[in-house]
């Protein structure tokens, strides 16, 4: 405990960045999922997508509050969520690409929730006890997201010809972005060395073991790896991010300092 407290007070830049990355993933995917509200294929999925969005917004609140505390500059969850410039968001690019259709939304939820399960499991024993607590709570949510989306991946992949084609297109589109999850970087190295959390690259094999069988069952073909690179977690986003932020930040930008 003592050790953790000390660590929290003098959090390294890498530690803060690592937590912000987790918070931003939750924030941005939550934002995307919330766009579905009222527009899903069946009401049950309206509820499920809203529920997942709600889980993610909840995680974002805890994680960004924690990141703000680690940073020690007095930024609260809303300042973190709404008042950064694009380059300071650390979510992976996959979170910000448009929903496109229920297929892409589902495949993304599946790909990311599998990753989350592995990550939260590891983080449950983080030397950052606050992060460990968040991980324990979030793990349950990630399991639900994974189960729900896995079922849909199978239904859509092994459904009709149309649904197979659309879902394969979603997988083809998203797969290259998953490389970013595992790309090595100094932040992960430092955090891993400090016992705060795993370098994400360590999770790749387990992640593949989780997702590949489901795609096989869904009769979907996983594309070969290409040299495609995305850089969202390093702060270099896609063109989609700016539009998402214009909407998400609008009220806070327009009424600076107001309390809601």
């Amino acid at each position: 405990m003592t050790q953790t407290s000390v660590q929290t007070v003098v959090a390294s830049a890498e530690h803060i960045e690592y937590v912000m990355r987790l918070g931003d993933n939750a924030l941005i995917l939550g934002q995307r999922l919330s766009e579905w509200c009222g527009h899903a294929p069946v009401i049950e999925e309206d509820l499920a997508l809203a529920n997942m969005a709600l889980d993610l917004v909840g995680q974002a609140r805890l994680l960004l509050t924690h990141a703000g505390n680690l940073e020690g500059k007095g930024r609260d969850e809303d300042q973190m969520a709404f008042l950064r410039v694009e380059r300071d968001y650390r979510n992976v690019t996959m979170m910000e690409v448009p929903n496109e259709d229920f297929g892409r939304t589902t495949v993304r939820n599946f790909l990311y929730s599998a990753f989350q399960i592995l990550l939260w499991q590891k983080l449950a024993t983080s030397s950052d006890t606050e992060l460990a607590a968040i991980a324990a709570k979030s793990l349950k949510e990630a399991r639900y997201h994974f189960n729900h989306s896995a079922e849909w991946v199978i239904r859509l992949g092994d459904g009709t010809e149309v649904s197979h084609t659309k879902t394969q297109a979603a997988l083809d589109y998203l797969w290259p972005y998953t490389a970013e999850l595992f790309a090595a970087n100094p932040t992960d190295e430092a955090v891993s060395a400090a016992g705060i959390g795993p370098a994400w690259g360590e999770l790749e094999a387990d992640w593949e073991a989780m997702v590949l069988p489901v795609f096989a069952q869904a009769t979907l073909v996983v594309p070969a790896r290409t040299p495609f690179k995305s850089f969202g977690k390093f702060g270099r986003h896609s063109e989609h991010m700016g539009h998402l932020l214009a909407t998400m930040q609008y009220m806070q930008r327009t009424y600076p300092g107001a309390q809601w």
Partner: protein
Amino acid sequence: PEYLAEFNAKIDAGGFIEAKDWMPEAYRKTLVRQISQHAHSEIVGMLPEGNWITRAPSLKRKAILLAKVQDEGGHGLYLYAAAETLGVSRDELTEALLSGKAKYSSIFNYPTLNWADIGVIGWLVDGAAIMNQIPLCKCSYGPYARAMVRVCKEESFHQRQGYDLLLQMMKGTEEQREMVQDAVDRWWFPSIMMFGPHDKDSVHTDSARWGIKRISNDDLRQKFVDATVKQAEVLGVSLPDPELKWNEARGHYDFGVIDWDEFWNVVGGHGQCNVDRLAARNKAWDDGAWVREAAIAHAEKMAERERQAA
């Protein structure tokens, strides 16, 4: 005739009719119409509030709003389930909504134009809905009554959250207070129209006899106005009706003339958002067709595989 006597006796005794009980066809039809309209209202009602989820000004409010809109979808679901106990399918009901044949609450044909609208919908619109719905918790049809118990409980929670949102804004900047007043100005009369036409102009008298509608439109409206005026004072907003004032003799607030032409125009399809709301629901349904078809096709495949394995 024997059945009818039994049915009437049960109603008169304040008992519940259940799905398997005999009931007059007109009773069934009235209930299907009312419950499905109510379900449609919950579903369409997700749109005006959903309009602000992506722009909610804080994470806390975003979470509250998401949860609220999710609740509304949930209400829609169990109201559809209650309607299904009367022998209609959800697909039929959905089709009636999408084609414009079925109605939903006209209030959702007004636009949400600023963030305070989210609070005002909770306070006034949910508030009016609760007034309408509390008597339904004791209505004669069991499945509907039980659904309404749950709905009312959640709606009360939403109403408090909406009011809380407004209190927070009224404590804020001048711009925030202006937003609240603007929203109240736009939603006040539509809200009190939610109780329907004046009793003298109202039809559906069977509903009262059958124990579906237990309190009259005007009585409910008066109760709502009386309760709301005080809340408006606490909030510090004015209600946009110069004729609104306490009537010592009646022991109630008097209020101005309601523009029933506007009400009927909106009911008739000519409100500001009727076209956009139905278009949004139709788009969601059409865009989702391949998903629903895939789910059915996959379920059939699985069943076929099980048969073959057996």
